[in-house]
Every structure is written in structure tokens, then in C-alpha cells.
């Protein structure tokens, strides 16, 4: 009899038994997704006593909601709340704009122009880099002098190399190198970055984080935008070329409007990544350039977790992202999918 539940009533319909189980599982996961968010939302309206006396579940029935925590965060801690919020906003938007811009033009170039950097030139570059590092660390040479000297050496030798070089890298190699930067764990680069910014006095500033985030996200932009650019029909650009337009004009006037959805998707993805970023902010910021993730994490330090205050902070941190994503979720999904499916 149980078996009959799993036989379809009509051939192209799903049997009742299967449907019940499917809805059940999906419903369960819906609960798993929504319940923590719900819990956090109501906790933000709780008084300390409501929390420490044991769990209460429904506002107005189990407990009386209060705006105490909200008041505390926004009024009592006012500037301490707004500063990180503003910082996060500025850092996220600026670094996203920079990453999308630089990454897109690089992706476009890699999709349309043929590069052939000689292997020897790349090798020389890496060598010069190592020399700079050794000179600064070991020999105590000033960073600027080391860079200047090695840079000059590099350019001098470059001529000779280009003429004699026989093996070259191709676009695919450059693309692979840029995209593989993503594998690099941030913790590997963060300490030297910290030292660099410290030496030029940019520690604990928004600029430092903007530069760092832009660098970290350019690979993603290149990876995602490359496919979008490659799929633009070449004929459109070629006819503009024949008409005499410059490469810049073609890119910004013709191609960009065509890949606009891709730019939006990628931008959104990068914006979310920057908004939520934790590690670099942890190392590079203390007070002035504190971002929201740091603020949330800092709540832990004092008198034990104050869940009610934290909930407010987390909520104000999540809400802008949620609203933005919900309104534009179609684009993000497409962005992730293009990357995963083609990548």
C-alpha cells in the first residue's frame, strides 16, 4: 500500500509520496535558512533579561519587544557605529569601481589583442623583484632606491631580450596567471602588505584597504568579464575600426553597453565580497579605517557576548546587501553561472 503512494497518478506527474517527501525536505531547509535569521532579528528587540532567562520565541507573546539595543547602537555608540558603516561603504564602492574598471579593460584586451611577452622577459622581471626584496631586507637599502635601480636595469635589458627571445607566452597563459591569483591565500601576502603600508604611513586608512581589495578582486573581474567580452561578435568592432574609431572609443562606446549585464553582475559580486571581507581589514585597520565586519567581531571582546547589541549590528550590516541582492539577484546568478560553467 505504501508503494502505491510512490506511483504517479498520471504518467507525467509526480507521485504523492514523492511530493510529500520533497516538500518536506525543501520545507526543512527553508526552516534552516530562515530560523537563524529570524532568531537574530527578534533578539535585536530583546532586553538582556529576555535573553539570559532562557529562549523566548515569539515577540508580543513571549516577551515585550523593545528598542533598547537599537537605541544603544545608534545613539549611545553613534559615531562608533557610523564610522565603520561609512568606511565600509566607501571602501566597498571605491574598490569595486576600481577593480571592475581595471579588470574589465584587461579582460577586453586579453580577449581582443594578441600578446606575446617573451618568457625571458618575465623571468628577468621576477629576478629583479627578488633582488629588490633581498636588497631592502638584507642590505637595508631604501625601498625607493632599490625599485628605481632594478627598474632601470630591467628596462635596459628588456630591449636586448625582446630582440633575441624565441619562446613566448600567449594570452591564455596571461589569463591563467591572473586568474590563478585567486588561489593565493590572502594571509600569505598580508604581512608584507602591512609592512609596506606601514612604511609609507598608510596603515589604518581607507586607501590602504581600497588598494588591497581592488588587487584581490581584479582576478575575479578578469575571469568573469573575459567570457562576456569574448562573446561579443567581432564584426561589430571591426566595422567601427574601419570607420576609424580608436580602441578606447570602441571599448567604451560600443562594447561596454553590450556587456553591461555582465558588468553589473560582476560588480555586484565584487561589492559583496568587499563588504564582507575580514582578513585584510583585521590586519590593516585598527580604529580609523575600521570596517563593519571588524566592528561586529569587536563586540566579542568586552563583558561577554551581548547578543542583543550584536544582532542589531549584524542586521544593519546584512540588510543593505540583502536588499541590493534581492533586487538584482538575476544578474548575480548569471555572473556566478557564467564563471562556473565556462571557467
Amino acid at each position, binding site marked *: 500500500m505504501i508503494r502505491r503512494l510512490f506511483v*504517479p497518478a*498520471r*504518467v*507525467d*506527474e509526480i507521485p504523492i509520496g514523492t511530493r510529500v517527501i520533497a516538500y518536506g525536505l525543501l520545507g526543512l531547509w527553508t526552516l534552516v535558512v530562515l530560523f537563524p535569521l529570524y532568531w537574530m532579528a527578534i533578539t535585536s528587540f530583546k532586553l538582556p533579561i529576555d535573553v539570559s532567562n532562557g529562549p523566548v520565541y515569539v515577540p508580543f507573546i513571549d516577551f515585550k519587544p523593545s528598542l533598547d539595543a537599537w537605541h544603544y547602537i545608534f545613539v549611545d555608540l553613534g559615531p562608533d557605529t557610523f564610522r565603520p558603516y561609512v568606511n565600509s561603504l566607501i571602501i566597498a564602492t571605491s574598490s569595486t569601481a576600481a577593480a571592475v574598471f581595471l579588470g574589465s579593460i584587461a579582460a577586453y584586451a586579453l580577449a581582443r589583442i594578441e600578446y606575446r611577452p617573451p618568457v625571458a622577459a618575465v623571468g628577468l622581471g621576477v629576478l629583479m623583484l627578488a633582488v629588490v626584496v633581498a636588497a631592502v631586507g638584507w642590505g637595508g637599502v631604501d625601498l625607493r632606491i632599490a625599485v628605481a635601480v632594478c627598474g632601470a636595469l630591467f628596462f635596459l635589458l628588456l630591449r636586448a631580450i625582446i630582440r633575441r627571445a624565441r619562446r613566448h607566452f600567449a594570452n591564455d597563459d596571461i589569463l591563467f596567471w591572473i586568474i590563478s591569483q585567486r588561489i593565493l591565500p590572502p594571509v600569505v601576502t598580508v604581512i608584507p602588505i602591512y609592512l609596506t603600508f606601514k612604511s609609507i604611513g598608510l596603515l589604518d586608512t581607507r586607501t590602504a584597504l581600497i588598494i588591497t581589495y581592488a588587487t584581490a578582486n581584479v582576478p575575479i573581474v578578469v575571469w568573469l568579464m573575459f567570457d562576456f567580452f569574448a562573446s561579443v561578435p567581432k564584426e561589430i568592432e571591426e566595422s567601427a575600426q574601419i570607420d576609424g574609431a580608436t580602441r578606447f572609443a570602441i571599448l567604451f562606446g560600443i562594447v561596454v553597453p553590450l556587456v553591461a549585464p555582465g558588468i553589473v553582475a560582476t560588480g555586484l559580486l565584487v561589492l559583496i565580497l568587499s563588504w564582507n571581507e575580514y582578513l585584510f581589514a583585521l590586519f590593516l585597520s585598527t580604529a580609523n579605517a575600521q570596517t563593519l565586519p571588524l566592528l561586529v567581531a569587536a563586540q566579542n571582546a568586552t563583558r561577554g557576548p551581548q547578543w542583543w547589541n550584536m544582532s542589531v549590528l549584524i542586521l544593519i550590516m546584512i540588510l543593505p546587501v540583502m536588499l541590493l541582492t534581492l533586487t538584482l539577484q538575476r544578474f548575480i546568478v548569471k555572473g556566478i553561472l557564467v564563471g562556473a560553467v565556462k571557467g
Partner: protein
Amino acid sequence: MNDMETQAPRPSHFASSTLPHSKSVSLRNVSKTFGDTRVLHDLSLDVHAGEFLVLLGESGCGKTTALRIIAGLESASEGSIYVGDNDVTQQLPRDRDVAMVFQSYALYPHKTVFENIAYPLIVRKRAKAEIDAAVREVAASVHLEPQLDRYPRQLSGGQRQRVALARAIVRRPAAFLMDEPLSNLDAKLRGHMRAELKHMQHELGVTTIYVTHDQIEAMTLAHRVALIDKGVLQQLDAPARIYSDPANLFVAGFIGSPPMNFLRGTLTNNRFASEGMALVADVNYHGEAVLGVRPEDCMLVTAADGEFRGHIYSVELIGDHSLVTLNVGQQQMVVKVSNMFTGEIGAEVGLRASRERVYFFDQSSGLRIRQC
């Protein structure tokens, strides 16, 4: 990889396995509604065992839906489906003992040709030796032996189609269902495969239900043709009768290339009058009617001798014949003439039609008005 290799007809490999497996297939009062749209209206069809039946119609007329309902991939909103004496309406596709060849062939890309063909048997847990023998036998009959270890992506369109066919054959099903299997092939290959299909069906004797929008395929392959328009069965008959004895305007206009000429007019007192001209009509009917006559059943004569008169609109040389389009009053007619025809555009000519080849249809219902 020569698709066109014509070999001497092989002796039948299936002598031991033909007719006993074949069953009749019936649709009884089948209707199908998708949302608000009624796609099939009370369709009833009986396909005899061993028969090649073609479901013919334009895109969207419901023929593919009907096929999928027989297969069990869609459910019928009303009505029932029978395979042999079994009511299979509630049964899943796998239990209905029918095999289907899809328009896109639906080959499994990760399996070799051998594994593709063997799949129906593997799923039914047959012995390995049995599977091996059966697959090789079927592959030989469709000339696919050299390709057994290849993958579908390495095959040409014609070869892929034969793999799809082989996969259907290997099961010895009660019926074959085919959904426009030739439409993805180029014209030359299509003609060759038509002949192959007809021969194969004859050899195997399997009940075959074949969906197409191409009337040539229908006429050449079918024992009987079921012409469907907007979900309603228009006529179910042998190709010859569909051609020479159409049941309504739709059938008359669908079959035949170039299509039948239609002249709108009025029938009164055994006379059909149109555009100021008339001819004697051997039917007892009064009302608005349509006269139908095929281009190949007309001939051009001098204006004085013609039953209808008109002016030449255009002359097209096809090769072994020419087509002359005439303006008869406000309507147009096409006449097939010899390729030596030398009429000028604008010239006045007359038209005569063989009496037996003239059809009359009621103008509003489209139904054929038969001789009394």
C-alpha cells in the same frame, strides 16, 4: 564513414522475431489540455499491428503531443491509450513496450555506440552474452558495425540517426514511435534514409507511428496517413485516397505540391459559378462553395475553349515542366504545363479541368461535397 553506401539488400536478420511482437496501438477519445489551451480534441485512432501510420500536420497541430501521449511522456487529459489489448493509459513509459526515436536522436554522449544500443537491454538486466549478440545483430542490419566503439560526437548526422534506430530496434518493442527523425538530415540524405526506413519497417513488420510535417515523407512511407489540424483528426486513409479523395478543404490543400487550386464561388442547380464564369457540376448542393482542382489536372487552352478564362500572371520553368499562374478574376490558379510552353505574361488563356478531378467543398465548413 560513407553514409550513402548502398549495399545489396541483406537477408532479413529478424525472420525469427517479427510479427509476433508487433501489436496494434489505439487512441480512444484522447483530449489534451495545456493550461488554457486545448491541444488535442477527442482524437481516436486505431493503428493496426504491423502498420506504418504517419501523423501528418503543421507545427503545433498536436501530432507530437499525440505521439508523446502514446509513449507515456505526457498524460492524456481525457481518453485512453491501448497497446494491443492492454489499457496502458496509467502505465509508465517503460512498461508500455514502445520504443521512440527522437528528433534530436537523444543519444547518450558518454556512452559508445555499442553501449547506447545496448542500454535498453542492460537496464532490463539481460545476460551479457545475449546483449552482445543482439547489439551486433542490430548494428549489422543498420550498417553500424565499424562504429561500435565510437562515441556519438565522432559520428555524422546520418550515423547518429541509425544509432537511434538501432537502439529502438534492439528491444523488439510492440511499436516504434518516431518524432520527425529525418528533419535534421540534409535533403540528399533524407531521401536515402526514407527508402531505408521503408525497407526496414517492411522487414521488421513492427507497428510504426511516425510524426512529420513533410507530406512527401507521409505519402512515401505510410500505409495510412492521419492528417491532423489544430488537434482534430481531419482524415485517416491510405496515401492514395488522401490524395485523390480528400475529406475536406484542409486535407485537399495540404497534400500535393504545388497545392490544389481553390476557386470560391456558388453552387446552384448543378452549376458552379465564379468570377463571371461557370461550369457544370455533378452535385446536388446549393450554397457558397469552393472548387478544387490540382495544377496537374488542368490544362491551358485558348480563351474561347476554356471553362474559365484568365490572364497569365507568371510562368516558371521547373525543369521537366512549367508552372503557369493565372489571374482568374480576383483569384489565382496555377496550372502545370509542358516545359515547352511559350505564353506571355498578360496573355489571355482558357483553362479546362478533367471532370473526375474536380472537387467541391462547402465554403464555411470546408467539408467535401460528394457526387450524388
